[in-house]
């Protein structure tokens, strides 16, 4: 009797464990953790977005800080051992000294070492837009400049500007997903659900959009944005342009999925229960496409980041004084600048790292969520 009870308990426990292990989320998580690269990429992205949120804290200099005497300064050398051969406890930098006025070649002024200080006071800002403070992660006393990644043609700190620029570069992808996905889902759902004439009209428009070389269309649309827009409004307009061009692909695939889902019995049941069409589409049909949508969203973000960088690179995206990685990279466009001041290529590296992280994460997420598309 007691034995039976124990056996029943054990069986019950096993059943529970099995049920817990088999929830789709748990399965997906287990799959995802098998892909170490995807996890590392996820961590890189979390770090990038974290740094972006607290950009002012990490940036040694303000967005509009310029030192006109130090344009095209190379990355500053961080030392522990000074010119006299003494070791220092704190890492330090030297002030810049202009060696060749014509070729803009700088050398270190080794007469005095300037300690790199942590949690220093600098320009004032508000953490997350409210708590006012002036504490920054690192800094050095003037006249030394902590240009860790060098400076640009106006003597602005490249690292600080990359940190501020990450706001636009990283957010535009998310912003565009937030606009296109609801549109693509609803239009694709409606087209697939109703079929016939609605479907025809929507899908023909998608075809027209898909017939353009995407970037030509982006270029044309971005060029008609008025030059008088504020930088915030401009960002939203650019996001709108990307959304206008980008909703079609998603809508077409959702339509295809909905075409098959709408024949399933649970849809019939929902309709028999007397639910309205929109409710059936949004509450019953579209949730079945979730795993596909998550994958598509992850993989669409790098494309948008690429597009924004490209537009800004050509001068049609974000405008000075605000900045993005593409706009920063645009400074390196001329052969002379590029070859003599190669640190200006670093924003491009940031773009590559973020896009790579998104691609690897997206690939891992696809394998985890959607076994049919698994890429061995």
């Amino acid at each position, binding site marked *: 009797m007691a034995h039976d009870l124990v056996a029943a308990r054990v069986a019950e426990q096993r059943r529970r464990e099995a049920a817990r292990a088999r929830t789709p989320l748990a399965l997906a998580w287990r799959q995802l953790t098998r892909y170490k*690269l995807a996890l590392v990429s996820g961590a890189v992205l979390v770090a990038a977005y974290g740094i972006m949120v607290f950009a002012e804290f990490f940036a040694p200099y303000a967005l509009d800080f310029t030192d006109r005497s130090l344009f095209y300064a190379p990355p500053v050398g961080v030392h522990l051992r000074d010119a006299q051969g003494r070791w220092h406890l704190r890492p330090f930098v030297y002030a810049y000294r202009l060696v060749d006025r014509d070729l803009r070649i700088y050398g270190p002024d080794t007469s005095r070492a300037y300690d790199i200080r942590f949690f220093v006071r600098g320009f004032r800002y508000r953490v997350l837009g409210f708590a006012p403070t002036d504490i920054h992660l690192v800094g050095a006393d003037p006249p030394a400049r902590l240009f860790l990644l060098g400076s640009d043609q106006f003597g602005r700190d490249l690292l600080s500007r990359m940190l501020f620029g990450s706001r636009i570069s990283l957010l535009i992808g998310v912003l565009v997903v937030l606009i296109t996905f609801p549109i693509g889902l609803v239009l694709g759902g409606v087209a697939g659900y109703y079929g016939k004439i609605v479907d025809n009209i929507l899908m*023909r*428009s998608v*075809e*027209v*959009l898909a*017939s*353009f*070389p*995407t*970037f*030509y*269309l982006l*270029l*044309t*649309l971005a*060029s*008609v*944005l*008025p*030059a*008088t827009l504020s930088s915030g409004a401009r960002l939203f307009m650019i996001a709108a342009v990307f959304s206008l061009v980008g909703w079609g692909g998603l809508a077409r695939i959702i339509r295809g999925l909905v075409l098959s889902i709408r024949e399933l019995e649970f849809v019939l049941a929902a309709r028999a229960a007397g639910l309205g069409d929109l409710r059936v589409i949004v509450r019953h049909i579209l949730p079945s496409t979730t795993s596909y949508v998550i994958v598509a969203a992850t993989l669409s973000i*790098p494309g948008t980041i*690429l597009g924004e*960088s*490209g537009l800004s*690179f*050509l*001068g*049609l995206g974000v405008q000075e004084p605000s900045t993005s990685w593409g706009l920063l*990279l645009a400074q*390196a*466009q001329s*052969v002379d600048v*590029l*070859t003599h001041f*190669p640190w200006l*290529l670093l924003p*491009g590296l940031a*773009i*590559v790292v973020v*896009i*790579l992280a998104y*691609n*690897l994460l997206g*690939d891992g997420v696809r394998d985890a969520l959607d076994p049919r598309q698994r*890429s*061995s």
Partner: protein
Amino acid sequence: MIRYIARRLILLGPLLVGITFVSWAAIQLAPGSGDYFQSLVLQYPQISPQTIAALRARFGMDQPPWIQYLRWLWSIVHLDFGLSFAYQVPVTWLIGSRALNTLLLSITSMVAAWALAIPLGIYSAVHQYSVADGALNVSAFVAISVPSFFSALLLLYAAFWTHLLPLQGLTSVTYDVLPWWGKVLDVGWHLILPTIALGVFSVGGLMRYMRNNLLDVLRADYLKTARAKGLTERRVILRHAVRNAINPLVTLFGFELGGLLSGAAFVENVLGYPGLGRLILEAVLKKDVFVVMGSLLLGSVLLILGNLAADILLAVADPRIRYD
């Protein structure tokens, strides 16, 4: 098959009308950003309003937008793309050679990418889970993550310091006096840098696609049969597996072309290559409306024809595919 092609070509008409309408609407959307003539007045205030009005009338820009559109559409039917505001020459003169250059660049990139990606994909699939496979996979991911403008900048940097390749343009200064074979060599020489810059992206995607296709095919029963017959492994892979794995790649052809046309716009701008992408950027900045419309239209036609070619190729390559 012929009926299918005919139907696609007939559908091309409405599609083109849709495309021209979208491009026209895109340009007309501009709220107060001014057109070419307004910026002309800003640049040269001494031009009299009468001259501007006459210029407007000459280009038909004094009409309401929808009349302008219909007029433009009507002239397009007669293969007349209108005049460029900035250069005062027919748009066809400007676009023709530029489109050919872009097509040349896209095709060389595509050929180079396929020639490199397919062997790499085969190697990677056959040696699945080996170190080389892992390295190739990671490299492929890096390749698809490098924007073409960045790869062009990096190549420009490398070419400047190594002095191996010309940095800008499609031809040397001496191009006009070269014999015909010298001209071909000269263009080929100038094409190397942009081809690599543009092709890197495609190689990554194609390689992964080829690898995955081949891995699917390698599990198929008919390969067991082939091995059971006693064929050499080399023959099994090359004659039986690869042939079947390559078919689906043909569908990528059209998709690739779209990506290449867009990517080429950057490479052309960074490397000073005289192509359609650079033309459209210049025209867009100058608000040279007819040139923008013409480039958009031509780019789209290239893309549509590329897609059609891909569909036909697929049917030719794979007898299982039938377009009723």
